[in-house]
């Protein structure tokens, strides 16, 4: 059984056909990188997995996406519950105007976990997992906005894993960071893989090659090729993929 199983997903923004028959399977504890030129549909596809596209006016989706064999587009699914199980990290760090502690505790609290000893324990665990604990443990009351860009992004990751999701979606999580912060986040990804299934959208081809087990190449709304990362980068079977990873367009 696959962790995530997307079958013939089609998505329309009004009249625009933004995803065309995308099918993709992801196994547990894998990192999958989604690559392709801007506007190719990779971010859109990522957002179908936690139904973030539902929030956009005029979007229509058909097809099936199953997580752990449950169809997430079924009427019985509680969207908030789904989103709790499928965490998401954004391009720019989205630290709330709250303290470091309250940022991480936010997801727990909105999901009804308010007992302070439990919250405290889970926040600490998440910060440790996100490799941020040692840097912030003495300043948990300080505003999250006072952290550096790289720390802020790791704080966002900690906040995501605090609610103990099954899957983590990342939308270009390092594009706003400097190289040192980027490598820290990448190390973290490899560490997190042990517990989570991760799908990451990236513009950085080296990053995809460094961290992912499989890579999917999107072009104009279609999934062109999806295979083991070394194969995609060394001998892709489709010419378009070869041209893209070879830097001929993008």
């Amino acid at each position, binding site marked *: 059984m696959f962790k995530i199983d997307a079958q013939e997903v089609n998505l329309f923004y009004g009249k625009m056909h933004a995803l065309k028959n995308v099918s993709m399977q992801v196994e547990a504890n894998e990192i999958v990188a989604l690559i392709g030129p801007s506007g190719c549909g990779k971010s859109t596809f990522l957002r179908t997995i*936690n139904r*973030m596209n539902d*929030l956009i*006016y005029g979007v229509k989706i058909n097809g099936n996406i199953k997580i752990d064999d449950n169809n997430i587009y079924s009427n019985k699914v509680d969207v*908030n*519950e789904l*989103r*709790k*199980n*499928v*965490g*998401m990290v*954004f*391009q*720019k760090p*989205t630290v*709330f*105007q*709250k303290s470091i502690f309250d940022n991480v505790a*936010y*997801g727990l609290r*909105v*999901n009804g976990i308010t007992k302070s000893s439990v919250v405290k324990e889970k926040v600490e665990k998440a910060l440790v997992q996100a490799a941020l604990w040692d840097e912030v443990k003495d300043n948990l009351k300080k505003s999250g906005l006072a952290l550096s860009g790289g720390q802020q992004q790791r704080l*966002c990751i900690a*906040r*995501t894993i605090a*609610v103990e999701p099954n899957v983590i*979606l990342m939308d270009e999580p390092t594009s706003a960071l400097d190289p040192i912060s980027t490598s820290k986040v990448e190390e973290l990804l490899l560490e997190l893989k042990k517990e989570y299934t991760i799908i990451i959208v990236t513009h950085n081809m080296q990053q995809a090659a460094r961290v992912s087990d499989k890579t999917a190449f999107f072009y104009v709304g279609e999934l062109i090729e999806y295979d083991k990362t070394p194969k995609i980068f060394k001998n892709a079977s489709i010419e378009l993929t070869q041209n893209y990873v070879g830097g001929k367009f993008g």
Partner: protein
Amino acid sequence: MAFKKKFFQGFAFSIFYLFSFLVFALVFAILGVLLYKGIPAMSWEFITKAPEDGMTKGGIFPAIVGTLALIAGASLVAFPIGILAGIFMNEYTYDNWVRKFIRMITNNLAGIPSIVFGLFGMSLFVNTLEFGVSLLAGSLTLGILVLPIVIRTTEESLKFIPLDFRLTSYALGATKWQTIQKVVLPAAFPNIITGLILSISRISGETAPIMFTVAAYFLPKINLAWNEQVMALPYHLYVVSTSGIDPESTSRIAFGTALVLTLIVLILNLLANWIRKSMSK
């Protein structure tokens, strides 16, 4: 040719400089006159005593209290409704004709002359709902008057919060209202406060809407109740300056009242500006 070009530019620019300087000077002349003529009236008694001897002596204490009561009452009306309406506009409507229509109506509401609000308040609150000429009727009228200001600043402040903050919160399993309440509103709050202060300043300066809904000509005893009339600073200024029994002494009191009223309004405006500036840094 080059000379002509330069000459025209010089001529036009000097007019721009001149007018800009004149407007600048005008504002300070107005404030200067108010201070110069108003300060002699200032005293502890002026602030804490009721008017005496046909409003030629004494102070303006009941009018200050009345204005404060109107600020409180109108804020109670306008703030909750205005903030919720601003949230509705930015978070619950998509950019389609509903939003455009409501925004157009709100803008028009903002442009309705204040005396029309006075007529409306008199007809609906004083007569039809039988609240009488009272603090309740005046607060409702003034509250409706400043509603567009609160709606608009709330909407603008919310627009300022990046979409990703909302998405992040949803991605953690929060509902829409949780997201608004715990993430969006706290982040937008400093800017919303600015709008609230500006509306308080507007409430304290308006005269026409309260003339027929709440303001009392002379009511030295302070009796704050929803069904009672109150004195108010702007109306008091109007009364004192147009009743004119004894020009010498009324002019002193009128300038004093004008100074107090202007100071309240301007300090509130400066405060709002300061908050806006210090938050945008």
